[in-house]
């Protein structure tokens, strides 16, 4: 959900991906900037939060991570519906995890349309020698679905900051565009009716 309180943007971000792709490491690296920190005390905290400042705008990211619960079929649309952004993480050494990212993209687009900003992270580039997901394939897929692609390594702290920064920048942009669109759209509108009894529908058409 986006709320603006006293000039601060609050964005909700979901972190998604197969277990073991390192999404929690990415998050901890980013939030705490401590990959293996023994003093980490964020457990049972609220969502993991990060405050940042971009171009003078105060932004508060609430990042929601379902680590460990991936296999429970419990975390349906009700949990991610208010997200402004999603980070889809895969492990560059695990093709299945990339397939899972594709599933998530479909799911999110189906449920949230284009309102949500997506970024895809190919994690564990420190294991480049074991890569099984071709970089070109991942990048062209990202372009196709309108997402940015990043190569990251939580371990080496590579690409992590950039990933979150770009996501935040895009969410801010999207938010501001939408606010403007609200204004500009109002200038030329005429839809006279709503309850047109048409039976054809986009989904049933494609899906069946």
């Amino acid at each position, binding site marked *: *959900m986006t*709320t603006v309180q006293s000039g601060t943007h609050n964005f909700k971000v979901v972190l998604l991906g197969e*277990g*073991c792709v390192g999404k*929690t*490491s990415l998050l*901890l690296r980013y939030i705490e900037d401590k990959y*293996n*920190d*023994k003093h*980490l005390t*964020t*457990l*049972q905290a*609220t*969502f993991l939060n990060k405050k940042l400042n971009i171009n003078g705008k105060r932004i508060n990211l609430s990042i929601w991570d379902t*680590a*460990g*619960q991936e*296999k*429970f*079929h*419990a975390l349906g*649309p*009700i*949990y991610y*519906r*208010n*997200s402004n952004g999603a980070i889809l993480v895969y492990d560059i050494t695990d093709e299945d995890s990339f397939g899972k990212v594709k*599933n998530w993209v*479909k799911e999110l*687009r189906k*449920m*949230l*349309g*284009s309102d949500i900003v997506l970024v895809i992270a190919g994690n564990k580039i420190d294991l480049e020698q074991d890569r099984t997901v071709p970089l070109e394939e991942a990048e062209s897929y990202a372009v*196709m*679905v309108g997402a940015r692609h990043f190569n990251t390594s939580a371990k080496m702290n590579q690409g992590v900051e950039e990933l979150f920064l770009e996501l935040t920048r895009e969410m801010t942009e999207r938010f501001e565009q939408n606010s403007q669109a609200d*204004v500009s*759209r*109002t*200038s*030329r*509108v*005429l*839809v*006279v*009716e*709503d*309850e*047109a*009894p*048409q039976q*054809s*529908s*986009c989904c*049933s058409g*494609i*899906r*069946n």
Partner: protein
Amino acid sequence: MPRDILSDSLAVLRIVEKFKADIYNFSVGEGATNRQCDPVYQFKTNSLPAASSMSQSWDTMVCSVLRIAPEDIANQLSLLDLLCFKSIKPEELTTCGWTKLNKLMVAPNVVAFTKRFNRVSFWTVQEILNGQSPKVRAETLAHFIKVAKKLYDLNNLHSLFAVISALTSASIYRLTKTWACLSKKDKQQFDKLAELFGDKDNWMTLREYMRSISLPCIPYLGIFLTDLVYIDIAHPSGSPHRVAKMAVVLKALERYQTSEYTITPVPHVANYLNSVRYIEELQKFLEDDQYKLSLKLEPPSPIGSCAGSKESVKEVQGPSTPFTLSPSHRLGSGSLRLQGSYTQAKFIPTHRKCRSLGSNIFGKSHSEDKDERTPAGSVNLLDDTLLESPSWPTAGAKTSKPLPFSDGSSVMDSVECEFQSYVRRKTIIKDGRKISLSSWQRYWLQISGNVLIFYSSKTFKGTSRNDFSKERCKVVELHDGWRAVLMDCEAQDAFQLVDHRTGTIYKFKTGNESTAKQWAARINEVTNKLVTPLPANLMSFE
């Protein structure tokens, strides 16, 4: 007898009508062996006794869950769950084995317990979708809410969450007609139970509830697993805090593992519950199938009426509809809330087209709507193929026409509205056809020049401007065929808006008499001005 949900959804629904009393028999091994198992479908004559309460033999087979008392289902589920839960070993947890590729080897019981969760969830969804009419589905839905209540009473949070997540899934939650058939009591019960599983503050409600209750209790394992993953990453092997931190989680789980239920096993119910099977590898397909079936059963409503068609039920509650989660309480924008933690619901758990109400004010054309909902207009999300017309995000503008009093530029930016208020609107006759299942929709209504502007509701009950979207959802241009007629005889606060040209009648309720009078007066003032003075005898006003 093993029963396969996947086959239920894929084939039984079609086949069953031919083989009314046949049961789909499908044996598969567990876990990794599934992959090697070719499905063997057997049709057997089933001798299930006909249930007197069911009118169709079709239902007696598919909806047999209705014949088992909620208490029995909850009891037997809990016995089965507890057995599985108790077999989870600390080593499975401390190694985070369930996240590993060899999870079946290193964390077999965590995996089995998770599977139990998913099966209960998919089973719940499927049983509801097996009902052919909203009424039958609502009956099953109510049945599962009763099961959920019993699970709650038994402190079985594991299966309780499985059932609740089924009811809030994309496939079930969107069935507004079904939800509308549900009794108020059942809805409230559902809302209350669903509140437990809000993700706010890292599942604070659930965590506190689980801490507060006494044994026996089967916890929802998921949040413990999340905690363990965090400890595992934050405190890798060798870290001094790792053991202590893990011990806290393990100790809590160990305590739950000492739970005992004094429940008598009922083998035939347990067998029935155990018979729920599907191939885990095909879970994604099962989910897709269920969603497709859901769309087929209750096709997405046209824009503007996505809140369901049986909402006349709510008229009694009117603007003071209590703040709840159940979808049948949704009005207008279909916002969905949990624990009041979301002030602005973006997700509308219905067909994506309905989302146009909130974000796509142009969205009348179905084909364009399709483009618009496609990200970057480039990929078909269902099969990853490239779409031919990447027209997003500008596609929607095609349907727009300038407003009558606007030159297409900035006139409407600062709408100078002459009058505005909260209204409820119901379509009575549309283009000469009577709308039998019309529902009351809440709007913020403005009149500006000869244009009526509608704003959809963001909240369930609010009647002030802030409770409605800033984005207009529809605009009606008044012409000389429109008349507003007060309806004092029926309700003091009501008026009808009649379009004599197309034969359309809307009924409006404004909440009070003077607002209704003002509306009628202002609309008629506008439309009177628009009457072309020429051959007056051709105009017919009744």
